[in-house]
Structure formats: C-alpha cells, structure tokens
C-alpha cells in the first residue's frame, strides 16, 4: 500500500485535525455568557438527578435501602438502561440483530478447512463452557444489583459456544440459534405489548412492590436482561459459526 505514505494526504489530514483541535480549544476557552461546555455541572442539574433519587413519577418521594421505590433496581445504570430508557435498549438489540444478519448475509461462503482441535481443548472444553455459562448467568441475574448486565453476560455465554466450536464439540446448531434469537427478540416486545394491555402503556414495568437490594427485585429488569443476554449470546455465536462451522 504505497498510497498510505502519500505525503499530501497526511499533511491535509493533519491540517484538518489541527484545525478541529484548535476550534475545540477555542470553544473551551470561550468567555461568553451562558452555559459552556467546560462548566462543571453535577447530576443534580440534569435529568439524572431524578433517576438517582427515583422520583420521576412523584417529585417528593424519598426511599431507603431494602424498601420499595418507583424503580427497585439497586444498580442505577441498570435502572436507566432497562427501565427508564428501556426502549433504547430494545432498539440496540435490534441494531445488533440487523448487523449480525447483515454479517451472515454478506460474508463469503466458501469452503473452509477444518483443523482438528487439540486433545486438551477437547477434554477441557465442557468444563470451560460450564464455567462461562455460570459467569454469564450470574451476570444477567445480578444485573440489577451489581455491575454487569445482559450485554457482557451475552458476550460471555457466547464465548462458551465459541469454545465448543473451537473444540469441535457439537453444542448447538444454526437452527437453534435462530430460534433462540427470534424467541428472545419477540419476547422482549411481547412483554412490552403485554404491559400495553395490562397497564395501557408500552414497556412499563408492571411488576412493582419489590425491595431495593433483593435478588428478586426490579420487577421485569432481570427478565429483560435475561432475554437480552440470550439474544446477544445467540447473535454473537452466529458470528463464530460463520467463521468456524462448515456450511
């Protein structure tokens, strides 16, 4: 790739970048009136304040640990992701769905040589897989209490599938993955629609009354996270299948 060393393009790029940097610098030192991008603004002045205080619906409500509140997830990031802004998260799942679909669609399907896996990997694979599944399961079940959640959980579960594929063990096949993917995806929306028929509002968390910090709290949050985890796992596993499975 000789073109990469083209001096002209490099100079142009550096000029553009330095100009942009200069502009950002200029904006950041701007002394005009009004809110500036360099001002330090605490969550108190943002919508996040309501999320932290869990008083979106009722402005004066306060809460204590191990008691009920409007959103009973202890991990506030989770409560934003899977409750306050749940719709974004479902769309994000769709984004992953679309891109992986596109991935499977455009990837060239030519014959691949299948290498024999090493014996060690073949023997140890089940143990590793179970370990991965356990970690993943823990993550999405505890998503509302501790860091983690559905996405990394899905990624870790998919790693289990990857190990299986690498070890040459038959775990799941394409068809199953497709079914898991679709069922998980549809379930997310089915719950949303169910809440429409129960509460009259889409994607409302209709299981309330839990206590913050309990394992079974947060209403639908663990359910959603579980579905998301399986969906992500199924989709990511699809990628490995595309690379390493014979078609």
């Amino acid at each position, binding site marked *: 790739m000789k073109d990469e060393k083209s001096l002209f393009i490099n100079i142009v790029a550096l000029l553009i970048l330095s100009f942009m940097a200069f*502009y*950002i610098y*200029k*904006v950041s030192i*701007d002394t*005009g*009136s*009004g*809110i*500036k*991008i360099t*001002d330090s*603004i605490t969550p108190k*002045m*943002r*919508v*996040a304040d*309501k*999320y932290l205080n869990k008083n*979106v*619906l009722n402005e004066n409500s306060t809460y204590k640990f191990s008691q009920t509140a409007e959103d009973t997830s202890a991990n506030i990031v989770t409560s934003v992701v899977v*409750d*306050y*802004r*749940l*719709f*974004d998260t*479902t*769309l*994000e799942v*769709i*984004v992953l*769905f*679309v*891109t992986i*679909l*596109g991935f*499977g*669609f*455009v990837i060239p399907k030519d014959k691949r040589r299948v290498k024999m896996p090493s014996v060690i990997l073949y023997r140890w694979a089940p143990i590793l897989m179970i370990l991965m599944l356990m970690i993943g399961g823990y993550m999405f079940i505890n998503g509302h209490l501790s860091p983690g959640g559905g996405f990394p959980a899905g990624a870790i579960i998919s790693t289990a599938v990857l190990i299986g594929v690498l070890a040459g063990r038959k775990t799941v096949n394409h068809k199953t993955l*497709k079914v898991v*993917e*679709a069922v998980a*995806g*549809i379930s997310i*929306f089915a719950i*949303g*629609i169910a809440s*429409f028929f129960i*509460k*009259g*509002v*889409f*994607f*409302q*968390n209709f299981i309330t009354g839990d206590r913050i910090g309990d394992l079974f709290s947060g209403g639908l949050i663990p359910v959603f996270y579980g579905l998301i985890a399986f969906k992500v796992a199924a989709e990511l596993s699809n990628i490995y299948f595309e690379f390493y499975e014979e078609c």
Partner: protein
Amino acid sequence: MNSIVFLVVIPLIAAFLSLFLEKLNKLAMYIVTLFNLIFSITVLMSGNIPFNVAIGGWRAPFGINFVVTDITIYFLLLVNIAALISITVVNNIKEYQFYSFYFVLLAATNGMVLTGDMFNFYLFTELSTFAIAGLVAYKRDRLSTGAALKFLILSSTASLFSLASIGLIYKTLGTLNFADIALKLSKLNQASYNLILILFLSSMLVELKIFPFNLWVVKSYEGSITSVNMFTHGMLGTAGIYGAIRILLIVFPNMYSTNISKVLIILSVFTVLIGEVGALKEKNLVKILAFSSMAQMGVFMFGIALGSFESIKGALYIVVSNYLAKLVMFLVTKQYSNAVESKNYIDMKGLGRKYPILAISFTIAALSLMGMPFFAGFWGKFSIVVSALALGKLSTIGIAILLIASVVEGVYYLRISHTFFAEKDVNSVNISRVYSLIPFVLAAIILAIGIYPNFIEQILWNVIDEIKNAPDKYINIILSLK
C-alpha cells in the same frame, strides 16, 4: 393514543418472524406495511393530534417519548406510502434477510419520525443506516459490496460525530429530550452552541445528501436494486428530511442567527450544481436519478437554510414534488430497464411509443423536478426564488446559480424523455400494462398539485404554523404531561 408505538413494534416483531416465514415473507411485508399505513391514517383521522406518548410511563424529559404533531403525521404518511409503493416492485427475492432488513427499515423510519428523544433518534438513524447498507449489499457483487462498505464507513464516522454532539448536549443541558433541549438551548453559550450544532449537522447532512457529505449517494444507488433505491429515496430520504425539519427548525431555531446557515446556503448551492452537472453526461438512468436526487436535496436545503417561512414552504413543496417524482421515475426505470435489460437510457429508445403512459409519467415527473409551471415543483421553486431575492446578496447569487443549474437539469431530463419517444421499432419488448397504474396515479397527483395547489397549501400552512410557533407549542405538548 399509546398504541402509536405499534408502528415501530409490529415491524420489528415481523423482522424476527421473517427468519422463519420463508415464502410467506412477501405476504407479511404487505400486511405489515398496510397495517402501518392504515394505522397512521387512523391516527390522522382520529383528531387527537397533537399528542404525546411516554413510553414506559416515564414522563417526558426523563423517559423516551413519541410525539405526534401535524408535521409528524404527514411525514409518517409519506414514509408509509413510499414503503407500500416500493414493495410493489419487490419480486423474486428469496433471501429472508432482505425482508428482515425491510422490516427494520420500516420500523426505523417510522421511529425517526415519531421519536421525541435525541438519543432515540440517533439509534433509529443507526438502525436505518444498517438496514440500508444491508439492502444495498443485496446483490453482493463488486459494485454493491463496495458501495455498501463505503456507505457504512462514512455513515458510522458521521454517527460518531452525532454521538459526540449528543454527549455535549447532555453535558451542558442535562437532557436528551427534543423539547427540553429547545427550551434550555437559549441558555447555552454561543460558541458551545455552534460546536454542538456543527457536530450534529455534519452527521445529518450525510443523510440529506449535501455536498461534500454525499459521496455515498451515486454508488449506493447504482449498486442496488430498484426497490432498494425506492426505499432509500422514499423512506430513508423522507425520514431524513423530517429530521432536518424537526431538528434544525424546531430544536435549533437559533441557527439562523449564526453564520452556519450561510455556510449551509453555500453548500446547498454547490450540491445543486454538482448534482445537475454531474448528471449531464451520464448515460445510466439510475445514476442520473441519484445525481438528481442529490440536487433536489440541495434545493430543499437551500430553502431551509434561507430561513424565511415562505422559503420553508417552498422547500416543503420541493419535498413533495421530489418525493412523488422520484417514485414515478424509479418505477418507470424499473419497468423499462427490465424490459431491455439495461440501465442505459439510450437502450430504452422508442419504448415510450409502445408504452406511452409510463413515458408520459416520467416526463411529468421530470418537468416537476425542473420546476416547470403546472407541476408541483413550480410552486416550490417560485416560493424559494421570491424569498431568496429578498434576503440579501448571498442568497441572490445562490438562487441565480440554482436557476442556471436547473437549465442543465432541464436539458438532461428532456433528452431522456425525448429518447423514450424517439422513433424506433420495439416489438420484442413486453411490459404488463398493470405496472403503468401507480406511476400514472402519482403523476396525476403531481399534475393536480401543480394546477390546483390549494389543498396541499392548506396542509403546508399547518406545518408552517407549527414551525412558526415552535418551540413553544412543541414544548407545551410534551412537557405539560406530568
């Protein structure tokens, strides 16, 4: 009207189901599209407009909300009608992925129009980008692969810019809701405002096909099949226009006090010039349409960037005219290019004599795009010209260049029409007369608007009224709901 969310949810569920439906996919496509169309018509007829839907029951600035106002509902109709018309040319497609992409695109474009939240809008945009990239790559040959890849790289760069801008908005204003942003935006420092606007605008302009953000356009159009072209034009394009109107005019109305609107004027003039001149020597009909759609977007953007209400009305006329005309043109192109198995318009010589309705529809569409009187495009051109001449030197020069560019457009379009009507024997070609129906109806609408603009004028003034009272009215609709 909480059920408005069905417009997004049903297509998404269909997208999952399409993995298994196999041959029923086509039927599902019609059912879902018709559902969306009928649902949006019902909403229009219900008389509840404007209303605001808080998803998940979280009130407006805290949760995600869907807003339905006059602008929304009309663009919703445009998107769904375009979808219905576009899928009539889908045939012989077996890959379930195509249908999935379509459903996702339908949901995403509907969502882009409906949403009232910045980040949600970003997500819908991404979704539509991926769906379009997948659809463009449908043929999976050299041309479409290159086009899809380059489109993907460009649009993901752009989306990162808009993500940065969303971050900045959240940092400074502490909110992601359109209405809330509009309410607080006046408190923002001018320089910071500019930075945010530039970052967001530059990603917006990619979708609006404004030069120099539009290098993907011609390739994508050339590399994809006709129905995908119609999706890109009718659904993604229309939703993008809606985004421009919503975000530039209602969320960022202060734009007109900065020089950025002047830069936009210059850029849109360049876009028009490049679009028209680029098409002049082209022989591939699809590429000509791509260049022309670029140019029309330039005219639209010019009208928006001028910022007076009359020019915005003109821009909306241009939108309507371009929307209808391009649909007609793509339909005609599809039939003719199928018949002669070539996209070169010279090979289509003489087809207009055998199938006059298609060729006449094409001509009407072309004349409307040229801004000829008695066709819908004229009213737009007229409004824009009149208001541009009142707004100072820059816009005067701009409109002069625009008009000269429209001369070039006239030359290449009428040359194509002439080729259709040229004398040549075409006996081996066979096109079913059924396919003439939709182009004919659309062309008749173009003509009707051109001759009698009253009914569309009424609608457009409703829209303009909404823009005029923005953002106060818009904010009231959304934030009053506790």
